[in-house]
Every structure is written in C-alpha cells, then in structure tokens.
C-alpha cells in the first residue's frame, strides 16, 4: 500500500453499489428484488429508529442529560443499565431475524422466499448478535449493576476502564447494525470457519464486518473480565470473606476469570484471519502451509468456555431468585460454590466436542466426550440444590420464579440432549442437523436468556425505584416459555429426521408440518418480546403506584437490597461490615436493617470521563475504515485513540468529592422513608402497599 492508494481512493472500497438498496433498484431479477426489499426494509428501520431517537432527544432537550448523566458516566450502575439497554435493542433485531428464518423454514419446501445468501447472512448475524451483543452485554450489565452493591463496594475497581469496555462493545454492535445499511454482513456463521471465510471464497467485505465487530466485542469483554475479577478480589466490604459472598457474586467471579482466559484466543484467531485476508498471510488457507483446523481449535478454546461464561451468571441469578422467592436460605451454599468453580474449570477441558467430526483419532474424541459428560455432574448438583432450596419454602410464583421454574424443567431436557451429543458416536449422526440447533438453543434460551430476563425483573425496582408490571410480565414469561417450546421441540425431531442446519430450503415434504409448528412457536416468541415492551411501557406509566423507594420490595437477602432504590451514586453512605452470609437478612432479623451511622464522611467518587465515548467513536470508525479499507480514516482514528490514552495519563484531578452534609441529607431522607413505610407481608408484594419495606416472616427450615 502506498500513499497514492490512500489519497486516490478516499472512500476506500465504498461505492454506490455498496448500498443494498441501490443494488436492488439496478437489478431486474425478481429474487434479488424480494431479498433487497427485505434488506432495505431492515436498513430503513435502522435509519428511522436512529432518527426517531435523535428527534426525541432534541424534542425533550435531553442531549445534555444524556451526555453528562449517562454516556460519560463512570458509575457502575449507569454503565450496567446501558449494557442492558444495548442488549435489549440487539435482542429485538436478532429475534426479528429468527422469526424471518423460521418463516422461511415453514415455506422452505423446494424454495421459499429468501435467497441462500440472505439466509446465510440472517443466521450469521443472528448468532453473532445473540452471543456477543445480546447475551454478553446483558450479563455484563447485570454483573456491573449488582456485584458492587452485593459486596458493599462504592464502584468497580477501574471505573473508566468499565466505561471503555461498554463503548467497545457498543462500537462492535454499531458495526453489525451499520452492515444492514452499508454493504452486507458475513455469510460464514457466527464462528466464521475458514477456508470459506478466506479471501479466495469470500472476497467481499462481509467477513471483515464480522472480524472487526468480534474483535471489538472480545476486547471489551476481556477488559470487563479483568475489571470484575479485581473488583471482587479487592473491593469487598470489610469482613466479607469469599464464603460470605452471595452466589451471584461467586458466579460473576468465575465468569470474569473465564473471560480473562477465554477471550484472548478469540481475539488472536480473528486477528490471524484478518492477517490472512488483508496481508496475504497463510494461517488458515488451504495451500502454502495454512491449516484451517487450527482455527477451529483456537475458536473453540474460546467458544466452549464462552458458553459457560454465558450460563454461570444466569445460574447466579437463579440462585438468588430461588432463595429470595422461597423465603429461605440457599440450600447447599458451599456445594453450589464448588459446583460453579468445577464448571468453570471443566469448561476449559471440553472444547473438542465442537468438532468431533474433524478427523482426529477416536481416542481423543473419547477423552473429550467423557470430559464433556462430567460437566453434567456439577450442573446436576446445582439443580438439586435449587430444588431443595424450594422444598418447604414459602414460594411466591412471581415472574422471576416462573422463569426459574421453567428453566429447571427445560434446562434438564437440554442437559440430557447435551449428554447425548457428548457421545461422539451419536454426535456423528446428528452433528450437522437442527438437532444440534435445538440443543444449544435449549441451553442458551431457557438457560441464559430466561435467567437474564428473570434478573431484569428481579433487579429492575432496585435500579429505577419502581416495580415492573406483574400481569404483562407473566404474559411475556409464558409466551417466552411456550413460544420457545413450540419453536425448538420440533427441531429436535426434525434433526433426528435429518434436516441439516443452515439450509435455506429442503426437498422432504415430511418436514413441513413440524416446520410450521416451529414457525408458530417463533411467532409466540415475537409476542413475548412485544409483551416485554408493553410491560415496560405500562410500568413507566403507572410508576407512581409501584414505587419502592425504601428499596427492598422482595424481602431480599443480600446487600444490594440494603440501600435505597435507586441507590445513591456512592451506593452506601458508610461501607457496611459483614460477618455472615445473607448479610441483609441477618441485619433485618436483628432489627438493625435501617440504621443511621455515627458520623458521615466526605465520599470521593470518580469524575465523569469522555474517554469511553471517544474510544467508542474512534474504535467504531477505525473498524469501519478497516472494513472498507479507508486507510486515512484508520490512521487518523488510530492516532486519536492513542493520543486520548496518553492525554488521560496526564490528567491528575480525576475524583470528585460528595460532601458529608449531602451524604447525610440523602441518607436521612431515605431512613425517614424507611421508618414511615409500613412493613408488608409477602402476600401484598404486588400491591401498591409495597413501598420496599419487608416485614420479617420466618419460614421453618426443615432440618
């Protein structure tokens, strides 16, 4: 590359034909027209949504608030909320794609309405988004919000790094979104196996979109992992031993450590593929010494631990929910902790089961097959612990509990099919069919997504100060549960009947009825998403009725419930000291739940910082420049990124002080509210009487 290439082509590869809308108009093929119409519709949705958001922000003069209170915030709670918002936006797109794919499946006998390339783009973006831009931000958001509160900390260990991680993830998500408008996304699936994704077979820019969005997301996740692990190791309240930590914090710790070790292989492998594509390296090409099998090996060195990175925080959420909504101490706390640690460790020993059929010897397959089955043991321990937690508890069938119960039933089914697939002999039969698709959706939807949604419902009142509407929550939960069952149970059968995954059309008429059932299920899932949106709308509309300012609407057990809802910026006026598990329950039972400290002190918290948004902006433009080979943009944004980093090093005044008087005022306002609020019994949980103060109700624990 010379200077002349940089200046002769200021827009790199970008041209009029990069816009699918224009490409559609200039074509006279009707198939291209239909697919182009769908693509353009999606692109228009993206553009219109952005315009509506901009218009609303201007209409309500919210730009200042957005910038100073949110985008530049280093408060872990706000960053957590922004992560969840990102996750929900991306969830919407990925669900829409899923419905479109199932619609294609229902009419796919001998054709259907989608072209194979379009279908391939759909499953590639669906997978990429669901893993990297829905599940990861969702769990990172929940961890970000809840963990510092649960361990009695004021913030995470590295608040600005936290903001940068968020923005890197958001930049990756933005890259996937803009691929709808400019150019096209990869057709290589969420794992983008070479040699198909090499330049020889994929000369376009789709794979580059995939590479750079994943690189940004994986960098963000690595930094998040470091941040969370250090926070939990170093910032726990005095007296909180590791064994006093709530289970959600334990799972967050294991997930964070796994992120630190599992994300780098992904970053390396996508960068190696980029070297292949941009600079004619031969890491994974067919010829010249390349070896594509090492891509699979490295990808799944990341990919398998990733699955457990996703599920462990969900296990943490379920543990909190089973305990809280049964009104009982968590059964087998230590066994749950050790099961979590075992799963985290074992998850690094089983990556080969994602490519049993690659051609290695039967001995290796057997070793990894057995290792995979072993994971069933700690997971089984957890399931029993949760059931014993419920045993003779005072169970409330609230929305989080509905998700959790559905999780137990469905996850066990998914676990059993997982053990089936762990057997290489069976895997050879069904590995490339929709049986596999059904299995992993069985783990990530009832496992991860239900957990995240349960956590969202559970902690929402803490974050915003009012409860979510219960009725719409239930409607949504049941639609999710039955919609999921309708969409994926048929796929198990279809898989056994031989329907290959990732195929746009099929020739067997016997597939049609079950495909139609799956489509109906997918529609129900879409309805569930709608119900979720309506729930949010209704809840905001009637928020005054559902206020829980005192902060403990569910008779919670851990420290996050021991502060107001929403909590002040510094979380706790005085850092609590801990001498037991379920710290807040203990405090409530001893009647010291709502206390005034002897003295208030000035509290130092980090100032806002524009580092995050600047990094988000530059890394997005950098990645966009790389995709379209706009080299001046790459160099410019690269320099700005490094310059910002260096300038930050010279900034000395990074803290702001909240004076003791303000802390005192805020705290006393809350204590007054707590004293005035009537402690309510659990039967009144969903009434307007629930102001967030719980009455002590003892449950007889079987011995």
């Amino acid at each position, binding site marked *: 590359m010379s200077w002349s290439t940089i200046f002769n082509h200021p827009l790199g590869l970008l041209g009029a034909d990069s816009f699918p809308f224009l490409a559609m108009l200039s074509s006279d093929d009707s198939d291209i027209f239909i697919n182009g119409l769908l693509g353009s519709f999606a692109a228009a949705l993206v553009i219109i949504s952005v315009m509506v958001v901009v218009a609303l922000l201007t209409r309500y003069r919210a730009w200042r608030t957005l910038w100073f209170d949110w985008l530049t915030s280093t408060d872990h709670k706000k960053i957590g909320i922004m992560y969840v918002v990102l996750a929900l936006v991306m969830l919407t797109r990925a669900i829409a794609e899923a419905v479109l794919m199932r619609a294609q499946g229902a009419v796919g006998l001998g054709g259907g309405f989608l072209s194979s390339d379009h279908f391939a783009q759909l499953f590639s973006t669906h997978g990429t988004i669901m893993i990297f831009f829905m599940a990861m931000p969702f769990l990172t958001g929940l961890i970000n919000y809840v963990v510092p509160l649960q361990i009695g900390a004021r913030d995470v260990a590295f608040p600005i790094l936290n903001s940068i991680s968020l923005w890197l993830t958001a930049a990756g998500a933005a890259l996937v979104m803009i691929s709808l408008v400019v150019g096209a996304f990869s057709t290589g699936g969420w794992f983008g196996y070479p040699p198909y994704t090499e330049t020889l077979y994929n000369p376009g820019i789709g794979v580059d979109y995939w590479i750079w969005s994943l690189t940004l997301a994986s960098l963000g996740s690595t930094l998040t992992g470091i941040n969370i692990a250090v926070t939990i190791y170093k910032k726990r309240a005095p007296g909180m031993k590791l064994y006093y930590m709530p289970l959600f914090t334990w799972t967050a710790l294991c997930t964070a450590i796994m992120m630190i070790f599992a994300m780098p292989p992904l970053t390396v492998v996508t960068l190696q593929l980029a070297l292949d594509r941009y600079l004619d390296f031969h890491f994974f090409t067919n010829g010249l010494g390349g070896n594509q099998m090492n891509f699979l090996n*490295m990808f799944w*060195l990341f990919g398998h631990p990733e699955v457990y990175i996703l599920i462990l925080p969900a296990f943490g959420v379920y543990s909190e929910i089973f305990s809280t909504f049964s009104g009982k101490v968590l059964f087998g706390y230590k066994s749950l902790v050790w099961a979590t640690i075992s799963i985290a460790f074992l998850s*690094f*020993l089983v990556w*080969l089961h994602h490519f049993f059929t690659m*051609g*290695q010897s039967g001995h290796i397959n057997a070793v990894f097959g057995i290792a995979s089955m072993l994971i069933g043991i700690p997971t089984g321990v957890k399931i029993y612990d949760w059931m014993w937690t419920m045993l003779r508890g005072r169970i409330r069938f609230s929305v989080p509990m509905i998700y959790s119960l559905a999780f137990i039933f469905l996850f066990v089914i998914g676990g059993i099919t997982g053990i089936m697939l762990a057997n290489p002999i069976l895997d050879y039969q069904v590995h490339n069919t929709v049986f596999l698709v059904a299995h992993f959706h069985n783990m990530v939807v009832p496992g991860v997504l239900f957990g995240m949604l349960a956590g969202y419902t559970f902690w929402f009142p803490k974050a915003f100060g009012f409860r979510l509407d219960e009725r719409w929550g239930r409607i949504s939960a049941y639609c999710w549960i039955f919609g999921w069952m309708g969409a994926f149970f048929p796929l198990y059968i279809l898989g056994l009947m031989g329907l290959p995954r990732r195929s746009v059309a099929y020739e067997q008429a016997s597939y049609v009825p079950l495909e139609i059932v799956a489509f109906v299920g997918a529609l129900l899932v879409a309805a569930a998403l709608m119900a979720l949106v309506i729930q949010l709308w209704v809840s905001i509309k009637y928020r005054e009725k559902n206020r829980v300012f005192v902060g403990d609407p569910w008779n919670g057990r851990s420290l996050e419930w021991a502060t107001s809802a929403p909590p002040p910026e510094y979380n706790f006026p005085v850092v609590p000291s801990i001498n037991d598990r379920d710290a807040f329950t203990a405090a409530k039972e001893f009647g010291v739940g709502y206390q005034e400290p002897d003295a208030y002190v*000035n509290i130092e918290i980090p100032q806002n910082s524009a580092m995050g948004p600047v990094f988000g902006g530059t890394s997005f433009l950098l990645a966009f420049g790389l995709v379209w080979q706009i080299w001046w943009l790459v160099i410019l944004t690269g320099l700005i990124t490094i310059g910002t980093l260096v300038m930050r090093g010279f900034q000395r005044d990074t803290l702001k002080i909240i004076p003791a008087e303000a802390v005192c005022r805020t705290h006393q306002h809350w204590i007054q509210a707590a004293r005035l609020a009537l402690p309510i019994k659990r039967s009144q949980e969903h009434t307007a009487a629930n102001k967030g103060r719980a009455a002590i109700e003892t449950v007889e624990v079987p011995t």
Partner: protein
Amino acid sequence: MSEPIVTRTSATNALRANERRDFMSYMWGFGLALGLTLVPFALVQWQAMARDPLLITIAVLALVQTVVHFRYFLHLDRKRKREDLLLVLFSTSLLIIMVAGTIWIMANLAERMTPI
C-alpha cells in the same frame, strides 16, 4: 472527621516518595520486555540459528517475558500471598491445558493426513 485537604496532601507526599522508584521499575520492565521481543524478531530476520534451536529459543524468551510481566507490571514478587499463588497456579494450569491440548490435537490430525 479529618480535613480532606490534609489527607490528600499527605497522600500526595507519600506518592512522590515512591514515584521515582515506581518509574524506574516500569522503565526496567519496559526495557526488558522490549528487548525480549526484539531479540526473537532479529533472530528470525537474520536466520541466526537452525530451525529447532530457534523455536526453542523463542519459546524460552517468551516464558522469560511472562516472568518480566509478572514482576514489573503485575507486581508479583516473592512476598508470599496465597491469593496470588493460587491465581498464578490456576493460570499456569489453564495455559498448559490449552497448549498441550492444541499440540495433541493438531499433531494427531497431522499424523492422520495423507502425505502430499
């Protein structure tokens, strides 16, 4: 409640005292890391050794580099701390699993490939 300004000044003084030592430590770390990176590149560029000794040398230099990072950037020294030890052992075992597993799988695949 102490005056916040007083606390900050004393903290700053304490920092100043350590600043130079910290700076030198980071410079040492940076210099060593840079050297340990440049040497392997130079060895490859000028073909200073036969293939197998070269690979072994690069691997050894990489391991030394890890120790440098631990010592100068992650501040792990010989003061015994159980938490640090556990984390180092855990990291080492995971890396061994990844490297050994990869070699095992890839070597087996290579063995089973039809020779060209």
